[in-house]
């Protein structure tokens, strides 16, 4: 029996979808069975980030409304043998097309078949969000080191705590700017963690490669040289219970000339 984890943030544009795609990819490459579920009905893009758009034939609303069975709607990512699947959101209906009961049965079926059911939550805290968080066993709250994002994350953490999930929500701080940390103009990681009061699972550096990879339908975690990719890999390992020290400096390490020649072993 697997677990379902919702990736949420409150605010839009902080990197929920990228985070979902990258962490799921790492978990799958580590041999876990992973199914990603896109619940951003009407504004789906997990499929494009993964480069799977072409393969989507049926979506979660088709399953919920009984037009197809669940296994017909699962899109397999051919890059990861039999480990990584996507259940796409519907692009042609609105969010009310998916009701709580059918979503619950879909997720509970997926949990029997997969180790991890990673749920990409829509932005906001309305219907779609409510649906997504009620079917999750745990949550990853994604935030950026900026005041608007942290304050929305705070609101979300409050809602999540009231729901008493089996697994406590964990925090991922995304889009951390190296230069701003170095010259002290960014919000401090410690301050954010203290403010939100939930365990920190990892921080991810803001990097051009992340966007470049998404645009080409590849995952930045498959790029050995990327700092962000490294951070996502660490996050996935921590999710599997490995004790990887959370060293902000190493995640934000600048690689010198020699480092680039001899490869990066961080």
């Amino acid at each position, binding site marked *: 029996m697997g677990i379902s984890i919702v990736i949420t943030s409150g605010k839009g544009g902080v990197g929920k979808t990228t985070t979902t795609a990258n962490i799921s990819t790492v978990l799958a490459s580590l041999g876990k069975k992973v199914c990603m579920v896109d619940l951003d009905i009407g504004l*789906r893009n997990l499929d494009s980030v993964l480069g799977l758009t*072409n393969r989507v034939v049926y979506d979660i609303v088709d399953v919920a409304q009984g037009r197809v069975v669940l296994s017909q709607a699962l899109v397999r990512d051919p890059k990861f043998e039999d480990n990584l699947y996507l259940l796409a959101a519907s*692009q*042609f209906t609105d969010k009310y097309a998916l009701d709580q009961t059918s979503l619950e049965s879909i997720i509970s079926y997926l949990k029997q078949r997969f180790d991890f059911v990673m749920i990409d939550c829509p932005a906001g805290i309305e219907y779609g969000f409510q649906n997504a968080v009620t079917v999750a066993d745990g949550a990853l709250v994604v935030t950026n080191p900026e005041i608007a994002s942290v304050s929305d994350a705070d609101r979300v953490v409050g809602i999540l705590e009231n729901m008493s999930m089996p697994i406590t929500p964990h925090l991922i701080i995304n889009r951390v700017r190296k230069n701003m940390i170095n010259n002290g103009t960014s919000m401090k990681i410690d301050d954010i963690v203290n403010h939100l009061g939930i365990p920190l699972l990892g921080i991810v550096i803001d990097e051009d490669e992340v966007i470049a990879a998404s645009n080409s339908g590849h995952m930045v975690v498959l790029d050995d040289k990327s700092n962000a990719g490294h951070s996502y890999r660490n996050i996935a390992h921590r999710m599997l219970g490995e004790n990887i020290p959370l060293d902000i400096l190493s995640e934000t390490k600048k690689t010198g000339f020699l480092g680039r020649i001899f490869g990066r072993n961080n």
Partner: protein
Amino acid sequence: MSDVTLKGSKDGYVMIISDQGNFSNSLKELKKLIANQNVGSSEEEVIQVTIKTGNRLLTDEQVKELKTLFSEYPEIEIKSIDSEVEAKSSIENLIKSSQMNIEAGIVRSGQKLEYDGDLLFLGTLHEGAHISATGSVFIIGDVHGVVQAGYPDNTGVAICGNLIGAAQLRIADVIEIATEDNADKFKDNSFAYLDDLHTINVEDIQNYREIIKDSRKRTV
């Protein structure tokens, strides 16, 4: 003159129910007529009868009555019920399904356009968008989304023209997904159709006439 006439033709027996008479009276006459024919159980073969209703279109109810009447005579079977006239609504559908639609705008992600008949697509189909026609689709514009022809089950149609960049081609119930492996199949000046294995095949547009003729033969 009686309301019901029985005729033999080279295609078998024809029963003509006059469109002038009262229908329930005609049914009674029909019953008498069948009884008079003395069709016995000695006949091995079931007799096929075409029923012609002239300038009268039978309602579903009347067709049912007619069928119930015939169910009493297992040795006679209705081959078809033909009328000289057609309901306006079915004519409208017929016209719709044979018309050529022209779409020239941008179809954006999340939009789904459906057409009765053929579609001439001059616009741009964005990723995540969907165009669907009951007939063939002819693409002169750019497509990056899902293009569907022959919805839901018309196999004798094609998707023609510029197939470059389409995410999926769908014909009737068959779906072809564009992947790295088959990307070179999705060319300009080509057309996609259902071959005799019921899979989507792409050919050069020059061969359209011949191949579609074959494919329609299979359908009929």
